[in-house]
């Protein structure tokens, strides 16, 4: 089975603090990491390969330094990688992003399964996976939390829903997006790390994908950011005082007074 995994480089928010005044992230010196949800996508791909055999290609789009996430993927045991990088890709919304990713996956030839993380933690849109599926004309199942059956031509997966889950059969080729329940990512292997060090990441730009400059990046996007502002954090913040019993009672009184808690009904 040939599996393509889409991964994204995002700022690592693990070690940053919120500025208590402005409630924005203090981002100085923040390192870049593989989007946490994409680690679950890589793990799912590795497990499927273990069950059904085949080859895994990790694909990312980003600035040249995003090649580090491909090297990370190689370290986890992925076979090949591909970096899509071009000044023309800058400022892409999800429509322009899927344009490039879908072309790249097409170019890999005979991909049976595309796996994406459910969303990226910097954008939180969850749009790229289903968008790629539509562009490639593949069926998709989003928010996959587990696998019941893995075969060459079909999968049976569990799809997370708001009120439980669905068991869904999908014929391959297809696309899935995964949530963390698919399994904790394994640590990179020593062998993988050695290979990652030597691995030269192949790179493609818009022209290599057969895309015009106005189909990608900011120019190829439908949406446009017109305003950015800090979220308002309304209401005063206060610390209660007294014994634990008193504070427990005080907070309930305050919530009732402010009609956050309704006593009736």
């Amino acid at each position, binding site marked *: 089975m040939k599996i393509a995994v889409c991964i994204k480089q995002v700022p690592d928010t693990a070690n940053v603090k919120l500025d208590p005044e402005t409630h924005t992230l203090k981002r100085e010196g923040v390192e870049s990491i593989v989007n946490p949800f994409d680690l679950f996508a890589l793990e799912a791909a590795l497990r499927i390969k273990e069950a059904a055999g085949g080859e895994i290609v990790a694909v990312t789009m980003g600035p040249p330094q995003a090649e580090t996430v491909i090297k990370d993927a190689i370290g986890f045991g992925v076979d090949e990688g591909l970096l899509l990088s071009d000044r023309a890709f800058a400022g892409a919304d999800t429509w322009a992003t899927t344009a490039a990713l879908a072309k790249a996956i097409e170019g890999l030839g005979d991909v049976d399964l595309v796996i994406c993380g459910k969303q990226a933690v910097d954008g939180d849109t969850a749009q790229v996976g289903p*968008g790629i599926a539509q562009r490639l004309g593949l069926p998709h199942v*989003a928010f996959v939390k587990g696998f019941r059956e893995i075969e060459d031509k079909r999968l049976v997966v569990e799809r*997370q829903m708001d009120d439980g*889950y669905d068991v869904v059969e999908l014929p391959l080729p297809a696309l899935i997006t995964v949530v963390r329940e698919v399994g904790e990512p394994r640590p990179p292997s020593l062998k993988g790390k050695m290979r990652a060090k030597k691995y030269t990441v192949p790179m493609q730009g818009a022209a290599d994908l057969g895309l015009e400059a106005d189909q990608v990046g900011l120019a190829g996007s439908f949406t*446009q950011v017109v305003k950015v502002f800090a979220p308002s954090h309304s209401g005063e913040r206060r610390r209660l005082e007294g014994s634990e019993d008193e504070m427990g009672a005080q907070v309930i009184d305050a919530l009732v007074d402010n009609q956050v808690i309704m006593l009736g009904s």
Partner: protein
Amino acid sequence: MGVIIDKELCIGCEQCLDACPFDALEMKGEIPVVGDTCTLCGSCADVCPERAITVPEVERAEDDRAAQAKGVWVYAEVRGGQMPEVVAELLGQGRRLAEQLGVELGAVVLGHGLDGLAGELFALGADVVYAADDPRLADFNDDIYCKVLTRLIAEYKPEVLLAGATSVGRSMIPRVATAAATGLTADCTGLAIDPEKRLLLQTRPAFGGNIMATIVCPNARPQMATVRPRVMKRGERREGFEGRLITVSLEAGDKAATQVLEVVQSLEENVNLTGAEVVVTGGRGVGGPEGFKVVAQLAEALGGVVGATRGAVDSEWIGHAHQVGQTGRTVAPKLYIALGVSGAVQHLVGMQGSDTIVAVNNDPNAPIFDVAHYGIVGDLFKVAPAMLSHLKQLRGQG
């Protein structure tokens, strides 16, 4: 691509660096330079005291859809014969937008056995209901749902399409936007109309809720948005209102490639964090699975849902489905109570949009207190029972 900085006018004050939400500016000597992450949002130009920054216009392909499109649509999701609460909220907001634009409000409902739902949609504010009732739509499969909705968009050309940011909406609507070749803004918390340009102003949290961004889709139609549950207000019910019902038939060749074999409403998974009005969360401070009992008791007394931090979930004190935060669910309930939660940034970004936040922690320096409206420094195993007993007393149950 990027904003243009006039080196003659720039005084090197660096205010633009702080204003940039995308970290796209960097000082090279005395002058800022623009990096690849610039989206031309204009935040830097707004703060520049010397007006040294200009935002270039982006040349976009001509699109005549804006002139033809008319009407506001809501996608009315159905699951197990029921419409989630967000459908009423979308129709309430859709009604307000439609009135501002002077157009009709349409609701699209897809499924099987939809009797009675059209009447409910009229009562909730729809002028027109487009209903496709077919056995092939009995289960939710993205591809066939997408195909039917995209066909309706092509035929009736709405200018706005709203859907709930639910599991179904977040899976299917991105596919529809791609099929319809238009823009989509995910997880909106604010929607308004720019009356001059007739554009939908779509506001959403970005970077885990640390900034808010307002996004437009200037040329392509429909302007599509998924909207967070429990943000918009439902409208006045119009009992007995009869709008136009348009019955939609599927084509002979329509068939889903995927097949739903089983629908499981599991107890463990049935934690509707995103839709909850009250969330009571336990962190590492609860000490173990036993400690979640008091969390659950308080949640139950308040009609809420139990949340957990990643630390508590990773320690296997409670299931993944309860996790709030960056790798779990993002919540914005009316009331959020954090018990023994220290407030790692990954947790804060998943809950700081809550209306009222109460935090109980024995560490007075815990970061959770920075976002808490009511901070209680103390032992949660004393404070939470005190809250419970006082609540019972006020309700006359004590």
